């Protein structure tokens, strides 16, 4: 037997997730993203036990007050404390973002996978339906669905999730078409693996990267969509707060009380950035090719 040229230093067999975790820890920006998201999640979860003012309590004596020692972030048009509304609102907004995107991914990715993998009439049907759905503006469709399901936060999330789903079908299908032609997929067939095994072990892991990135971006869209639905009375029901509904009310008072818009806006911005940084980091960490 002839000798083999030198290879990179020996890496003992390590479990995949521990390796990904080590890589994640080295990635500064991903950690920043994780910290931001953890911070808001912690706020949302601990809202009931934090020593804050009741977010629903109105006060006629404290309408549209600027931030002060009493009201750290100021008050809104009904004299409610913005800080506690922000903290309680984090619940609704984060849930709207994460849950609706989870719905999109869980439905959209399998459809895209199947359409791209099998092609033919399966692809034809799925793709045409997807295109029909994409032809409808995202928000209009979310509103229509939410109205059909009835007003509640849960229904709003389902409506947003279904409306955002076609993007994931399309994205996944396109990626699958590219990966499907790789020799290793044909090799998997030659070995005798069935379609499900090939899709789950050979194709899905190789198309995940853009899906993760798209998901983090869609979380931002979903948070804002929830705001719009709340504004129409289809999302979080007033007086319960969400960042979106707060922002919607605040836009009427931009000149008189800019803080009303500033805080929820800043919070949405931070969460979106947080998810994006985390998503980028995840994508790199899950790719064994990235050192």
């Amino acid at each position, binding site marked *: *037997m002839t000798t083999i040229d030198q*290879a990179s230093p020996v890496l003992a*067999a*390590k479990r995949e997730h521990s390796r990904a975790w080590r890589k994640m820890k080295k990635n500064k920006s991903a950690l920043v993203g994780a910290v931001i998201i953890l911070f808001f999640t912690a706020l949302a979860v601990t809202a009931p036990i934090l020593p804050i003012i009741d977010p629903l309590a109105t006060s006629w004596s404290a309408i549209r007050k600027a931030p002060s020692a009493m009201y750290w972030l100021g008050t809104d048009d009904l004299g409610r404390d913005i800080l506690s509304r922000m903290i309680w609102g984090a619940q609704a907004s984060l849930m709207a973002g994460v849950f609706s995107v989870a719905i999109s991914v869980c439905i959209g990715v399998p459809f895209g996978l199947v359409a791209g993998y099998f092609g033919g009439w399966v692809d034809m049907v799925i793709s045409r339906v997807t295109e029909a759905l994409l032809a409808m503006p995202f928000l209009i469709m979310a509103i229509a669905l939410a109205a059909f399901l009835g007003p509640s936060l849960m229904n709003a999330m389902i409506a947003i999730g279904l409306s955002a789903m076609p993007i994931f079908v399309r994205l996944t299908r396109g990626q699958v078409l590219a990966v499907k032609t790789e020799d290793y997929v044909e090799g998997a067939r*030659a070995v005798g*693996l069935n379609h499900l095994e090939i899709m789950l*072990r050979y194709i899905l892991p190789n198309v995940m990267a853009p899906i993760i990135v798209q998901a983090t971006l869609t979380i931002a869209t979903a948070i804002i969509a929830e705001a719009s639905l709340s504004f129409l009375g289809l999302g979080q029901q007033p007086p319960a707060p969400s960042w979106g509904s707060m922002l919607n009310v605040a836009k009427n008072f931009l000149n008189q009380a800019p803080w009303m818009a500033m805080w929820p806006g800043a919070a949405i911005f931070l969460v979106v950035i947080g998810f994006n940084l985390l998503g980028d980091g995840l994508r790199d960490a899950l790719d064994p*090719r990235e050192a």
Partner: protein
Amino acid sequence: MSEAPVLSVKNLNTSFLVDGEWKNVVRDVSFDVYPGETVAIVGESGSGKSVTSLSIMRLLAANTSRIDGRIMLSGRDLLSISEKEMRGVRGNDAAMIFQEPMTSLNPIFTIGRQISEVLSRHKGLSKSQARAETVRLLEKVRIPNAGARFDDYPHQFSGGMRQRVMIAMALASKPKLLIADEPTTALDVTIQGQILDLIKVLQEEEGMSVLFVTHDMGVVAEIADRTIVMYRGEAVESGPTEEIFHRGRHPYTRALLSAVPRLGSMQERRWPTRFPFVDIKTGEAAESVEVAGTVANGRTPVLAVKNLVTRFPVRSGLFARQTGAVHAVENISFDLFQGETLSLVGESGCGKSTTGRSIMRLIEPTGGDVALDGYDVLRLDNVGLRDMRKTIQMIFQDPFSSLNPRMTVGAAIAEPFVKHKLGTVKEAKEKTADLLRKVGLSPDMAGRYPHEFSGGQRQRIAIARALSLDPKVIVADESVSALDVSIKAQVCNLLLDLQQSLNLAFLFISHDMAVVERVSHRVAVMYLGEIVEIGPRPAVFDNPQHPYTKKLMAAVPVPDPSRRGIRRGISNDELKSPVRSLGYQPPKRQYREVSDGHLVQVA
């Protein structure tokens, strides 16, 4: 030579910025190219040969690369002039052609426009002058009916024709130096022969110098006056081509040359022969060993293919009606015995890969019979098909795309074994370790991912995976074609060893005649979906009968500098297409038996 050199490179050092560090990829390379001379830079991938040519043209990204030394082109120092002046040099004093003719032309402009644009920009010709000159250039590179093809788009040209267009474009400004970076590597062998001839003829006509970058020793022997051998960024040896080939001093040169398969080197031998192993430090060559007596002739063939037909529908129009069919495989028959290697050779589009895939039913054949070790392959249901896969496995061409990048190599090798429930997880682990050892890797590499391995190592891993089911037949589809020569020799030796120890039958699909001659027991030559000649390897190679077989053999560049200057006679033949209209009835074929088992299609 008393004349001043056209190109003079002194102490060229090129470094790339990698992860914040400067990595030197070309070290102290010096050479001259004299007027009318062809100099070849030869080396394997990563040797720095392409970087050298790109450095000369200053085509490397300025912020991540650094070029030191002196590059004089007709007395002008290319490293000291501005980027703007350099643009005047490129395509004017020195022109360059690249490997991939499919992507180096702009698909949305006609080829005439692309060439005349060069002329009007560099030469200031008027539109009608430019057109006339363009037609003249297209005629010069022997494009048939040049005037009429002026307004054609690149997709209407074949690969070889596009490379001619690229050469015409390079010639537009009458450069003193033509840099050709692997210009024939992506082309079929008969087309490669045409392009090499063309470059030789044009060089005589125009009197230009050529710097030819290639990995192929056969091409070097055929075209170069002088040769520079590069190895890991250094020019280890340079001199007249004949000196290098016959009296190479550096061990690497000798190792490289001994690994080059030579067409015709097997005339004295009956059996497939291992490549001689040359120690890269000493340059000592070990004797090449014949691998005899593996074939179980006379018994039932392990694979018998009868009248196999595979056609792909061609659809067009509004309702995608079928308007024709690609007759990819047309009525082919052959047997393969245990322990035997049958090679399918032919050029791109001849149906050799489709044959391999049809036999494995990775593509559904249109008709015929395939008997594989007791299975009636074409009539198996899904379950039977899955069982059948234990008997026949495949090794692909590109080791960079044949392994799942998200799976450790250990998991990849064990997967077929686990899938077919051939043993416990522990047994799968042992099997994996055993297979890794068998293909010359170490078992502790099982935890690594494919990207951590070199191309040759990956191909070994792919082989290990194919072996994990203990198959009887392996379809090797261009399995060594993408590898560097020295790695190619190692992998071929591995395949021969495995055939001997495991009694494997190989269906070896390749376009590389020299490798085929080395490893096969029998050879089948395919042309437009049909087998035009089949027989024992010595019979087919020593006594080719079919005109296409003869043409194929004549086109192979032979690494023997004494054949330099040989012209094949430029023919502009292109590969024909196997697309037929609907209702086409393939003609009945007759075969003539030349000698025992040697059949030739006669009509």
